[in-house]
């Protein structure tokens, strides 16, 4: 039996080249094409799986975020103060650079609303209301607030939340970027609507604690006093929680005193050496106090 195999092997080696070279060449070409096709298909499937897990490409993330933030800007436009807007962008950009996601087109804005709040959208779009901004006393506090929102983006909290609300197959064939057909556009709209709802209902509370914890580290990395975020929370905690200005924040975040307790507890003994970081109250007043 063993020798039969050997004979067959010798035969095939001996004869095969003579007969099959042209055919083999042809086959190889074909095979290459097939392989490429298969690879393309596999890549597509892989992308589908990634999406089913809620993993969108960066470009898709940015596209969704741009739509979401445009929605918020539709409710409350930017404050008409270029100096202020540039300043907030500089602080935000500097903080974002301390995260692992400096591939995003980070953009920041102060919007015309008395409500006390700040919002982040996937892709690196962040807005803070004038109501919250006017409670701030220095640059480190602004940095703390922006770092909290930046952390939501870096950790993809909104995308994770959206992923939970949509069915698995919704993601698997979602072409966010080239949403050409009516069906695709409808899907994109549905996704954006769900995203907008998130701004009114809020993220999972554990994401808020996570963003607080990451924010103080980002602020410290950027050279700011990380305790400034605790100061902002202390100020918010001193406001009547029934006031109209706090309504949305209170509905969408854990109780402020619990955030304070958790954050202070986690920072205890770990952030002391960064407490001497910058607060820059003078620059803050110069660039943001001109109204």
């Amino acid at each position, binding site marked *: 039996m063993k020798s039969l195999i050997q004979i067959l092997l010798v035969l095939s080696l001996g004869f095969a080249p003579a007969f099959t070279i042209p055919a083999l060449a042809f086959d190889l070409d074909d095979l290459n094409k097939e392989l490429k096709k298969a690879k393309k298909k596999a890549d597509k499937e892989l992308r589908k799986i990634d999406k089913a897990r809620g993993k969108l490409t960066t470009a898709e993330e940015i596209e969704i975020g*741009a*739509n979401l933030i*445009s*929605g*918020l*800007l539709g*409710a409350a436009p*930017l404050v008409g103060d270029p100096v202020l807007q540039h300043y*907030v*962008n*500089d602080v935000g*950009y*500097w903080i974002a*650079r301390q995260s692992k996601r400096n591939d995003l*087109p*980070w*953009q*920041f*804005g102060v*919007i*015309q*609303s*008395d*409500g006390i709040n700040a919002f982040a959208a996937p892709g690196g779009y962040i807005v803070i*209301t004038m109501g919250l901004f*006017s409670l*701030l006393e*220095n640059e480190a506090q602004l940095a703390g607030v922006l770092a909290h929102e930046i952390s939501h983006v870096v950790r993809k909290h909104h995308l994770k939340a959206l992923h939970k609300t949509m069915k698995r197959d919704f993601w698997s064939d979602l072409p966010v970027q080239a949403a050409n057909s009516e069906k695709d556009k409808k899907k994109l709209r549905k996704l954006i609507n769900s995203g*907008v709802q998130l701004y*009114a209902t809020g993220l999972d509370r554990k994401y808020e604690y996570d963003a607080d*914890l990451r924010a103080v*580290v980002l602020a410290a*990395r950027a*050279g*700011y*006093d990380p*305790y400034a975020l*605790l*100061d902002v929370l*202390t100020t918010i*905690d*001193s406001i*009547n*929680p029934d*006031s*109209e*200005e706090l*309504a*949305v924040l209170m509905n969408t975040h854990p109780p402020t*005193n619990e955030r304070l*307790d958790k954050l*202070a*507890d*986690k*920072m205890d003994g770990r952030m002391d050496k*960064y*407490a001497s970081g*910058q*607060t820059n109250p003078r*620059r803050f007043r110069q660039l943001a106090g001109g109204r």
Partner: protein
Amino acid sequence: MKHLPQILTIFLFLAAPSQANQDGVIVRQAPVYAKPSTAVQQVGQIKAGSRVSVFDRRGGWQEIFSEKQGITGWVRSYQVRQGNFAPQVKTETSSDSRGFLSGLASLSRRASGFFKSSSGSTSSGTATIGVRGLSEDEIKSAVADFEEFERMKQFASSQKRMNVFTSQGGLSATRVPYISESK
């Protein structure tokens, strides 16, 4: 027009004293320092639940006085919950300790029940400032404004701007590890 800065200055001075002598309660047992820094010597400990007067705020610190414990010094801001509980202590301060904006913001909001009332619970006063934009309904029903989105882009910062921004602000990047979820 010439008088406008003067009027604003007077306005600020009016705002400052009303802010300066705030009262609070110590949230947890806290070390008290002679200066707003952990590098200086502790002057004592203050017990959780102590009622204190707050003289000044600086960065993440507040200068407090506890009549009961007879202690004066600086504690971390987050260890103080604001409210008007402590006996009134007359103090002088020349600085607008809570900052320009919050001074103005709080003055107009003081009368409106915006801050928690002296009992520490909520005030019965109703907010007189109309809240513009971003109520829950407004968020949900907003029509996306892509023109405003384009306008936002023009203020975006860049690596180029960072040199001036960080050197003027005395900022330099430091390595700081993330804090783990479980302590």
